[in-house]
Every structure is written in structure tokens, then in C-alpha cells.
């Protein structure tokens, strides 16, 4: 029987086929080059004295050296295609390969937005279909497809709300944002020129309705609510909240980042919401998190319809076109982007919606909620759940179970890397202490969830048994160990420089 020598040192520093990877600047030098260019003919510079006077200092590597460097780096990456990725409020779900096939159909890729409409009828129909599906799922009458990401969608929604209020004579001054909202919400309000007032959460992790009632004054432009909220809970009072907001003459914005919990079960339009973005890159399975661009279409209520951005797909006598200019009597906020939005994401999202069908999309949200509740129930005897279940699509724990153990939420997240998982979202939402927000999505099988639950239970047992050092210095098995985040944030080195000679 053979045995493995864990402490074996290699001459190269590599661990078998997993190479220790230097920075590209350390790999090559500026004195070498992988490509031969002829010396340029003498020429007159036309840069008005702004010519570069120093060498750029780029590492001169050959093509195979360059390819190997980046391929080796990519192998150290971790992605949803490699394993469980329970990053809360990010909906890291599987990107079906069917979507990729559809998005690569030549007739849909080899086109340009400035082509005559008669030559891109198929592409325009795809956009019209995406808008139609999103309209059915939200129960809202107008869909703006062009926003490029969730926060861009928020901006689009708030710009429409501001336009509607200005049209009525008073833009008002303040937007209300509950404590449990996504961090982008107050940023969006500020970018739109509004002050932000925070509404506290109650003991059940939901909006404190009494505090909301007190804050809803004549200067309030809108409430920005995330539902389900970042505690993974449905806002039970949402119908009452919508009525209160409207009675105050304000608009109701909903952050749709957590739509994966309610898709096919609840129509936001029925809840009294005036504007809500949908993250195609979360709920509708298009790649994100370094894997692809976002896409954040916005659904609007009837009250905000006159203000939606351009361009929009319209159909005239069965032929599709993009409406590029405003219509007399309507007050569009104008363009959110140069063109019509993320076509590649529309194709993937439509592929996802059509391949699932209405019943399939409903099952998606049911399975996502079931998975999260399975995690909540399976771990609440060894960790501390912040709120009584059942939860929606994400399970929230806090650090009370580690109190006085010497192990923090950050340490536990790092230890989870050793276990082979991307850590969950930590220290968010802020309303609970040392938060751990776990979102499994519908992607994971029960077997996969059981492996994760087993790991978390064993880590919780290690904490209880007092093995603190395992956590405070983790990760031990990753290519790099515990990084000094404090020094990195206090004294960031943003540019590589050659070390001084001698």
C-alpha cells in the first residue's frame, strides 16, 4: 500500500500539475519580446508634445508563455460550472447550455443595431417576446428592455418616477429605503438627486410599518423596497405598504433582484408596484459575476408608462420596428443606453423562459425556496437562524452560535473555501450581527445540498470543540492563504512596479 507525503517539497514550488503562478510582470521582462516588428520609419509625432517619454515596461512573452499563464490562472478560478456557489442575493444559478446554443445562431449574432428593420425582424421579435414574457410574469403593462444591469434598472425606474412627479408639479426631495434593502438602492436615489431616509426593520426582519407611516410625508418621492427582502423574507404587509405609499402621492419601486423566489407565484403588478427591475443575469440564468454582462429590464405600472425610456420594440401591421423618438404628449425620460440593450442576454433569457414554460418557471421558484428552507431547517440546530422560518429563497444565519468562541463570520467563510465551496454572502444584510446569507437556488440537487450541509455541520462542530486556529488562519488548502484585507484596504498597491535594483 502506498501512502501520500503531504509535506513533500518540490524544486519548482508547484504542487503536481497545479503550478505556483507568478505575476505576468515577474514571468517576463520588458527586455524580451514574443513578436518581431520592424523598426518604424522616422515619423513626425502629432500628439502635441504628449508623446510617451518612458517605456511602458510590459512583459514581453511569447504566445505560448502568455496562453499558459492565463490558462493556469483560469484553472485557479471558481465558478458555478465547477461547484456550489451559494452567494446570497446573487442568484448564482446554472447557465443552461441550450441558452448558449441559441445565442450563437448565426442569424441572430451577425447583425448590427443600425441595420434596416426589414433585415432584423427576427431579432426584434425576440425582444418583443422577452418583453411579453416579462409583462406576463410581472403583471405590469410596460417593459423597458434597455437598462444594462440591476442598478441601471433602478436608475431607470427612479428617473421615470422623478419625471412623473415633475410632470405633476413637484419632484419632491426624499426616497425611503428600508434597512433590509440592497445597497444599490440608496446609491440610486442619491444619483437621482434625492435624499435618503432609512426605515428600520421590525423584530421579524420586515419593514416597520408604523415607522413607514410616520416617514411618509409630502416630501417623499418613492419607497424602494426589496421583496423578498435581503433577510430572505417576504414582506407580508406589502399590499398595505403599497396603499400607504400611493395615498401619500409617492411611487412604489421594488428591487427585483430576488424575483427568483416568487417568479410564477406572485405578480408584482398585483402588489401595487409602480416600477421594478428584473435581473436577467440572476433570475433568468444569463451568465454573470465575471462571466457575462448584466441586463436589467424594468417593468412599469400604467401610471409610469408615459415616461418609459426609448427605444422600444413596436409592431405595425405585423412588422416589428424600434420606436426611437418620443411620441407627442408622452414624456419619455429618453435613452438609458446608446442602443436597445443586451441582445445576447435577451436571447439567453428567452431560451430559458421558453424551455421552462410557465409551469417550469413556477417550479423554479418553488424549488429555489424549497432548497433554502432545507438548508435553514438542516442547520438551525447547530447555527443560529436570524428569523423564524420558513424563509424564501435564501437562508439567513448570524454569528450568535459563535459568540465568545474566537471564530468570526469571516473565519468561517474562509474555512468554507477549504471545504471546496464558494463562501456565502457575509456581513450582509447589516440588520443582523455577523450575517451569513445562503442562497442555493434551484440548481442544486438534494445530494449536493446534503454535502454542503454536512460541511457546515462539521465546521460548526469544530467551532464548538474549540479548534479556533483552523478557522482564524484559514484557508489552508487554497493557492494563497489568508490575505491581509485590512492592509490591502488601508494601503492598496494598485500598480505593479519593478523592485528597486540592488
Amino acid at each position, binding site marked *: 500500500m502506498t501512502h501520500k507525503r503531504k509535506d513533500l517539497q518540490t524544486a519548482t514550488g508547484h504542487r503536481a500539475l497545479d503550478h505556483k503562478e507568478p505575476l505576468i510582470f515577474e514571468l517576463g521582462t520588458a527586455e524580451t519580446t514574443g513578436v518581431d516588428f520592424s523598426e518604424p520609419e522616422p515619423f513626425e509625432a502629432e500628439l502635441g508634445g504628449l508623446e510617451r517619454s518612458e517605456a511602458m515596461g510590459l512583459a514581453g512573452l511569447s504566445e505560448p508563455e502568455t496562453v499558459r499563464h492565463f490558462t493556469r490562472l483560469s484553472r485557479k478560478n471558481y465558478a458555478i460550472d465547477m461547484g456550489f456557489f451559494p452567494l446570497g442575493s446573487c442568484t448564482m444559478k446554472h447557465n443552461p447550455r441550450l441558452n448558449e446554443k441559441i445565442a450563437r445562431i448565426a442569424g441572430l449574432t451577425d447583425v448590427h443595431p443600425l441595420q434596416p428593420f426589414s433585415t432584423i425582424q427576427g431579432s426584434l421579435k425576440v425582444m418583443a417576446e422577452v418583453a411579453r414574457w416579462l409583462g406576463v410574469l410581472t403583471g405590469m403593462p410596460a417593459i423597458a428592455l434597455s437598462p444594462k444591469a440591476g442598478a441601471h434598472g433602478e436608475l431607470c425606474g427612479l428617473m421615470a418616477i422623478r419625471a412623473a412627479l415633475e410632470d405633476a408639479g413637484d419632484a419632491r426631495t426624499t426616497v425611503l429605503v428600508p434597512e433590509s434593502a440592497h445597497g444599490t438602492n440608496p446609491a440610486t436615489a442619491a444619483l437621482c438627486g434625492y435624499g435618503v431616509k432609512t426605515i428600520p426593520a421590525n423584530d421579524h426582519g420586515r419593514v416597520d410599518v408604523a415607522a413607514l407611516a410616520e416617514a411618509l410625508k409630502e416630501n417623499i418621492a418613492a419607497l424602494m423596497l426589496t421583496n423578498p427582502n435581503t433577510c430572505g423574507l417576504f414582506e407580508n404587509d406589502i399590499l398595505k405598504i403599497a396603499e400607504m405609499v400611493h395615498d401619500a402621492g409617492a411611487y412604489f419601486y421594488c428591487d427585483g433582484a430576488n424575483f427568483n423566489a416568487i417568479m410564477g407565484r406572485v405578480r408584482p403588478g398585483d402588489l401595487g408596484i409602480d416600477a421594478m427591475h428584473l435581473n436577467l443575469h440572476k433570475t433568468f440564468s444569463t451568465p454573470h459575476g465575471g462571466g457575462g454582462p448584466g441586463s436589467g429590464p424594468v417593468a412599469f405600472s400604467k401610471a409610469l408608462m408615459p415616461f418609459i425610456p426609448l427605444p422600444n420594440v413596436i409592431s405595425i401591421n405585423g412588422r416589428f420596428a424600434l420606436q426611437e423618438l418620443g411620441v407627442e404628449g408622452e414624456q419619455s425620460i429618453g435613452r438609458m443606453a446608446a442602443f436597445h440593450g443586451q441582445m445576447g442576454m435577451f436571447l439567453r433569457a428567452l431560451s430559458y423562459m421558453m424551455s421552462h414554460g410557465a409551469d417550469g418557471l413556477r417550479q423554479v421558484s418553488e424549488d429555489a425556496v424549497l432548497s433554502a428552507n432545507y438548508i435553514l431547517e438542516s442547520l438551525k440546530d447547530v447555527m443560529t437562524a436570524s428569523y423564524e422560518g420558513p424563509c424564501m429563497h435564501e437562508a439567513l444565519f448570524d454569528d450568535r452560535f459563535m459568540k465568545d468562541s474566537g471564530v468570526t463570520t*469571516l473565519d468561517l467563510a474562509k474555512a468554507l473555501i477549504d471545504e471546496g465551496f464558494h463562501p456565502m454572502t457575509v*456581513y*450582509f444584510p*447589516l440588520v443582523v450581527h455577523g450575517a451569513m446569507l445562503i442562497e442555493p437556488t434551484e440548481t442544486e440537487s438534494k445530494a449536493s445540498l446534503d454535502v454542503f450541509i454536512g460541511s457546515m455541520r462539521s465546521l460548526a462542530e469544530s467551532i464548538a470543540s474549540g479548534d479556533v486556529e483552523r478557522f482564524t488562519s484559514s484557508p489552508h488548502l487554497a493557492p494563497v492563504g489568508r490575505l491581509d*484585507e*485590512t492592509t490591502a*484596504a*488601508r494601503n492598496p498597491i494598485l500598480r505593479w512596479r519593478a523592485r528597486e535594483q540592488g
Partner: protein
Amino acid sequence: MGMIKFSEDHEWIHSEDGIATVGITDFAQKALGDVVFVELPELGANVAKGDDIAVVESVKAASEVYAPVSGEIVAVNSALEDDPALVNRSPQDDGWFFKIKLADEGELEDLLDEDAYDAFAKDQA
């Protein structure tokens, strides 16, 4: 001498001769963890009680710092810009944030005294 008071937003307020020096409490710096960045209010700005006028950012979170009293900002601790760790090392002394010239000394009466704050913080721990 002066008088030291505390707010429910975990700030300490040391007032003397109509000037209030404000910082965050030891409890607050412990909860935040290593502070990596501090944004201070503008000198000369007029602030109202409850306005968010400064930001303190740690490895865990970014938090707002509120004006515990109304008045004019008459000094800011620019040492925090180069050395935000002062907030962790000396939260209730060298790590002060700003000084406010009090518009209404009566507002100090709404703040907590040390015993009341300690009880409040203990309840939050």
C-alpha cells in the same frame, strides 16, 4: 473639563465652551472591525441633528456617522484620512472625527450619559 455624552448611534460627544467634539465609541469600533477609510464633513458646513455627515468604512461594512447635535463644523480630524486605524487604536481620544459649534446647547440634554449608554450598548451586544 466639559461634559461627555453618548448617542444611540454609538457616538461620543464631548462638549466644552459651546464646542462639541464627536467620535465613535469603543463599542462601535469593535463592532466595525479594522477601520480602513474615513470620510469627514466639510469645514464650515452647517449640519442639523440627525444628518449623515461622515462615513466610516471597515473591512466589514461602510457606516454613516450622524450629527448628534446641530451646528457648524469648526474642525475635522484630518489625521484620520492618512491613518484611519486611529479610530481603532484610540476611538475616544486621538480618533475623534469632527467638532461642532453648538447651535442649541439644549440638544445635549437629549443625549445619553455614560451609564445609560453602557446599558444601551450592552443590550445591543
